[in-house]
């Protein structure tokens, strides 16, 4: 295991590089969720976050990127597929919510949806 | 489940049949008379079962005779083995007459319950539960089981007084309950004291089987193994077995260890148990629950209360107090006797001042139960140091007889009072009179039953009183003289009451028109009581045959204990020559 903050630019491409990309995607998604007032935008952020996570799974699961030989390298991809399916389902539900939301408020500004406030 | 030849099955059914029927009644949609008929039938069946033990109709028979002085029909089943608690029941000459009396009075009192119209189902259910509790107390020989039954009996009584009673029923019920509960708490303490000091390892192997600690019905090999397990164990083997405790009390030093304030363990146990039982008897000064409970309770419950519940105190003293704590019994004999004598005098005086008919009868119970306590208490066997148990046997048998006799006469008296109360709804002695003319048969029965209580020869009260009183002189002349004086007071209050109620030209109180002759139902309750009062008065052997062997066994064992006990022999004066009291001469 390399040190936590080793210089990734000097290292050969390994898991860490993928992780960095995944982290960037994740942070972008999270920022998108936190800043967009448009519900669709928020959904887009969610997708980004999910894909960031997917990237991590694949990186960890890849037989080419790992030292251990005890796996055929499909477990990470399997998880990713699950996530993708989940994301699709989620998108469907979320779009339906958005649609209903729009029917109620004539807007998809999530800031208006503060009925749950304490 | 129905092998009645097995004492375990038989006694269990005898005790629990009323409870089972109570459960059934509780969950069936019955109402009114039907419930009463079912309850009556149940009590009759229980009574017939108890009779079947006398006559040997079934295979479980109660044997009489010297060789059957010990426990009969004993069975023991482990209940909570980790605490040595058993489901242990048996009968002997002390408990058996009381069982039959209980079953008998329950039939009559159920008959007397007919006028009760309020919440009939609840009444019958509680009544039957009460019967189970009472029968259980007399059958149980495991202290824990005994205590459970003791409490089971208490609660229905509380409700029966508190719901179906008179104007001050709540007060009376609470008073009864608290008094008795106080007594049972003391009892519980004593039970636990004894339990934690008991040790089965000190019993010989044959006693372990005889007392039912190891069930005698087990196979020989299993029995031997269990006995050896007990005898060879390292830790003390505690027990709740009353019979085993009796043996420990009389033959070992387990209960004689100094305990508290310089008194031995058994001294304290005796005092605690004694108070518990004497509350039930009840004796002065812890008797005041009785008049209130009686006055407020409905007639049948008064009959049960006076006829059976009071006997449990006496039963406890003779079964538990003395055999388990002989040393304390010996030391406190005078106290016990004095309590008895004081009750006799006090109750008689108090009865004389009453204007409430039922209260008068209640106080007469206090007075009459004083004879029981006195008779149980006379340790006359050790008087004069000749260890002749005969006078004490007479006293104890007299006390036992008095219990049965009082069960008959007091139940009868309460019923007699109930009959007029049902008609005119008051009990003021000064507002009666002239009932002889209006209700001749009733008055005849009433006078008969009152004279049984008065101790008239030929009626049952006489035998018990005379046996007790005659046995006292050897124990204490002073107590004997005082107890003899009670006959005057008894005659006084009973005759005065009879005069005020039955004699005289006319009825002085309200509702005179309601004084109709007694019904067949009422007659068939009072007449058996009077018949038994006469029968036992004329033929006391009929009863004594059953109780004498067991009572004598208790007395002889205690006398043997006293003879071997240095503290007793030294407390007496230097031995005088013991003379055979009845030398035989050739004709």
């Amino acid at each position: 295991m390399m040190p936590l903050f080793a210089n990734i630019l000097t290292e050969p491409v390994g898991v860490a590089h993928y992780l960095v990309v995944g982290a960037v995607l994740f942070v972008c998604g999270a920022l998108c969720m936190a800043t967009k007032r448009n519900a669709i935008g928020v959904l887009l952020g969610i997708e980004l976050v999910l894909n960031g996570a997917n990237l991590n799974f694949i990186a960890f699961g890849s037989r080419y990127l790992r030292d251990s030989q005890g796996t055929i390298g499909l477990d990470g991809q399997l998880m990713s597929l699950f996530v993708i399916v989940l994301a699709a389902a989620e998108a469907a539900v979320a779009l339906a919510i958005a649609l209903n939301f729009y029917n109620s408020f004539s807007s998809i500004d999530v800031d208006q949806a503060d009925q749950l406030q304490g | 489940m129905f092998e009645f030849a097995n004492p375990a099955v038989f006694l269990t059914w005898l005790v629990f049949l009323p409870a089972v029927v109570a459960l059934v009644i509780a969950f069936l949609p019955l109402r009114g008379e039907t419930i009463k008929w079912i309850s009556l039938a149940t009590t009759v069946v229980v009574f017939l079962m108890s009779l079947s033990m006398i006559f040997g109709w079934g295979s479980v028979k109660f044997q009489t005779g010297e060789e059957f002085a010990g426990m009969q029909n004993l069975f023991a089943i482990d209940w909570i083995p980790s605490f040595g608690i058993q489901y242990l029941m048996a009968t002997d000459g002390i408990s058996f007459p009381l069982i039959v009396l209980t079953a008998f009075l329950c039939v009559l009192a159920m008959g007397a319950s007919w006028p009760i119209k309020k919440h009939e189902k609840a009444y019958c259910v509680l009544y039957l539960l009460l019967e189970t509790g009472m029968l259980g107390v007399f059958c149980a020989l495991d202290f824990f089981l005994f205590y459970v039954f003791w409490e089971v009996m208490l609660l229905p009584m509380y409700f029966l007084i508190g719901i179906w009673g008179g104007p001050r029923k709540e007060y009376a019920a609470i008073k009864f309950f608290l008094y008795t509960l106080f007594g049972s708490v003391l009892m519980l303490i004593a039970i636990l004291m004894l339990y934690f000091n008991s040790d089965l390892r000190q019993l010989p192997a044959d006693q372990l089987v005889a007392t039912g600690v190891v069930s005698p019905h087990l196979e020989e090999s299993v029995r031997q193994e269990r006995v050896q397990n007990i005898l060879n164990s390292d830790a003390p083997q505690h027990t709740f077995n009353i019979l085993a405790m009796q043996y420990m009390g009389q033959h070992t030093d387990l209960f004689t260890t100094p305990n508290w304030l310089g008194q031995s363990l058994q001294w304290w146990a005796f005092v605690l148990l004694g108070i518990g039982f004497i509350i039930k008897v009840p004796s002065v000064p812890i008797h005041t629950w009785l008049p209130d409970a009686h006055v407020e309770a409905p007639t049948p419950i008064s009959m049960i209360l006076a006829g059976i519940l009071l006997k449990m105190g006496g039963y406890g003293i003779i079964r538990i107090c003395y055999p388990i704590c002989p040393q304390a019994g010996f030391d406190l004999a005078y106290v016990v006797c004095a309590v008895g004598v004081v009750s006799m005098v006090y109750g008689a005086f108090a009865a004389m001042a009453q204007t409430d008919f039922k209260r008068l009868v209640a106080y007469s119970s206090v007075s009459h139960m004083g004879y029981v306590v006195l008779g149980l208490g006379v340790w006359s066997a050790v008087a004069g140091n000749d260890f002749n148990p005969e006078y004490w046997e007479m006293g104890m048998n007299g006390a036992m007889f008095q219990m049965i006799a009082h069960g008959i006469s007091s139940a009868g008296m309460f019923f007699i009072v109930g009959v007029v109360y049902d008609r005119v709804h008051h009990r003021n002695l000064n507002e009666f009179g002239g009932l002889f003319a209006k209700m001749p048969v009733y008055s005849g029965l009433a006078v008969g039953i009152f004279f049984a209580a008065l101790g008239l020869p030929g009626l049952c009260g006489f035998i018990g009183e005379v046996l007790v009183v005659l046995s006292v002189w050897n124990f204490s002349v002073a107590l004997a003289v005082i107890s003899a004086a009670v006959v005057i007071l008894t005659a006084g209050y009973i005759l005065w009451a009879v005069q005020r109620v039955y004699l005289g030209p006319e009825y002085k109180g309200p509702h005179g028109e309601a004084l109709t002759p007694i019904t067949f139902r009422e007659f068939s309750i009072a007449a058996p009581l009077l018949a038994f009062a006469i029968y036992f008065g004329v033929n006391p052997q009929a009863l004594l045959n059953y109780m004498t062997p067991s009572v004598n066994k208790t007395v002889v064992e205690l006398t043997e204990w006293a003879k071997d006990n240095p503290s007793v022999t030294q407390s007496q004066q230097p031995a005088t020559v013991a003379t055979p009291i009845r030398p035989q001469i050739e004709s």
Partner: protein
Amino acid sequence: MDNLPTLLMIAWLLPLASFAVICIGYSVPQLLGLRVRYSTQKIASYIAVGAIVFGFLISAYCLFGIWLPEHPLAASSHHGEEQPDELAGQASPFRPTAFAEEHSEEGHKHATNGPPLYQAGDWYTLARFGSLKLTIGYYIDTLTIAMFCMVTLIASCIHIYAVGYMHDELHDVTDHEVTLSNGEHLHRRGRFQRFFQYFSLFSFSMLGICISGNLAMTFVFWELVGICSYFLIGFYIERHSASTAANKAFIVNRVGDFGMIIGLMALWSTLGTFSFGDVDKADGTKERGMFSMLHEQSNGYELAPTQRMIDFDASRQSEGSEPTNGQWLLFVAGVGIFCGCMGKSAQFPLHTWLPDAMEGPTPVSALVHSATMVAAGVFLVGRVYPIFTPEALLVIAVIGCITLFLAATIAITAVDIKRVLAYSTVSQLGFMMLALGLGGWVAGLFHLITHAFFKSLLFLCSGSVIHAVHSNDMRQMGGLRHKMPITAYTMLIGCLAIAGIGIPFVLGFSGFHSKDVIVEQAIHFGQTNGGYSWLFVVVPLAGALMTSFYMFRLWYMTFAGKPRDHHRYNHAHESPWVMAGPLVLLAVFAIGVGWTLPMQMPGVLSRLGVENLLDTARPVGQLGNKHGVLLPNLVIPDEHASHVAAVKIPAGWSAILVAVAGIAGATVVYLWEVISAASLRRYLNLLYHATWNKWWFDELYDFVFVRPTLAISRFIAFALDRGLIDSILHSFAWIYRGLAAVVAIVGDRWLIDNSVDTVAEKTWDLGLTLRSVQTGQLRQYVMFIVVCTIALFIVATLWWRFAVAG
């Protein structure tokens, strides 16, 4: 001989059967709601009369057909000589030797008699504990049979008489003595059969006392006669006075029984048996009875406490006091049993119930309260005579003496005819007790038998008078002998008999003979003891004087002179033969029952006489002088020695003199009216008031016993029971409730509730505070999530770093 117990048992049980038949036979219809017709009620009297008459026939057969042929009187009377002489001088080991010496100085021959002939056995065991037994048995000696004959004969007469007397009860009755609240007199059904029901029960109980083989059985029947007496006195249950008198009789008797129980306990605890005689057992041996235990043959039949009594006495002895060797115990036992007799025989101080008992119908007074039940006390003293120490006998004598005098004085001024007779009965019973107490065993019981006849006669006569004039008050009578001659002259016979009229040393009415022997014994006692003991002579003589005075006063006031109340006089009539017949029969006995048939008669009749008969029953150890131990100077003289001329002549003359003097006095005052009764009354004002008010005994007892008892009972019932004990109890309850309130308020509300509330409040506040975080802004939530995740990550990392790994 062997069937004697069985025969007597039949005679004894017949009245019980009669009682049972009447009781059940007449209760069943009542139970069924029917009314018994009067003609049916009458059958009850036939049953009862039949039973008792048959009982008499059996008793008479037992006496004349069995007992006398077996034990002819000629052979067994008047002797103590059967005793071997060597026992004579032998002093009892329990008697201080000083007396034995005194004896020999006086030259007294010290021999006493053995037990009389008797049969004893047990029929039935009531209870048995080891060797202790309470049994129903028999003890049959001459006294038993004599009592049987006397009781059944008199009872038969009175039963028959009662058929006539109680005739009123065969109709609906209007009781003029009872006024209802609406001012009318009481109307009720007649109760003819009930009277005979009680009478039968009484006869059974009384015969039970007579045949009783042990003290326990005696006590049983003692109580039973008491209760019969209660029922019979209170026969008119509607009359308050009657039921009160019945209560009084029973309760006063119970006072006596209290003493009796003490006596029983003392004997029972030290002898272990109640049997009088030695009881035959099935295996041919004998169980020893009380008498043979106390009068050992080896002691020459002298009274001596048993070893167990001596032990008992010693174990109860306080330090330093003189040992009494069981004498005290024996004394207590004797006096205790005598207390019972005192109650039953209405002896001072328990005499007050008997006059009140006259509330019952007159046949009851005749049977129960003069002839039999009240005599049972005397009988019992006679029966248990062997257990009485000389000191106890002295007590008996003193009580008898006081009683006979007191009662006689009261009888002089009484105006109720039955009360005069009642006091006379008390007085005569005093005579009997006196005789027994002075050692005159035969004298006392002889008087018992003669008295039974003439007193029942007197009562029946008075009943006949009352039946005729419907009043008890002698002041409303007078001159009745013209209207009812049979009653008048039979009553005169009774009066002469009770007064003791006769020709000295030749022949007289029955009372003459029996009173004579009493006076003889008294004079002998006086001669033996000297000093104050002469009071025992003077007082009975004074009593005898008063007896003849008041009896003739009664007769004159009732039958002689002019009628005082013409209305009543005109309605008076002689009673029917069913009543008069028994009077005549009893009159014959009142004349002749004291006689002894001449020697020359053949067979069993030779020397036949009640006195001789009784002499064969003299209990063990009663001949010869008996010396007191606790009172060393007391001597109870030998009864046989009382018949010597030195005693007999003064006794005979003084007795007849006082009797004649009494009659003369009564004649002067009440027949000739030379001295008017009114002026006498004025002269003896104080005395008159005392006797008129019965010496204030009722008031005294009311004040000393009844009221305090009621006060104590009220005190106990209300002050002690409800006041003290219940108050303590209630105060416990209040304390408990107070404590509970304190716990509830302070503990529960303040401490526990407050703290719990505080926690809740704080939680609430915290919630309020935190709610502002919950804005509902989605984007904010995301920010929170991100920030918190990062924060958690940092915390976890640091924690890992420094806490776990470090």
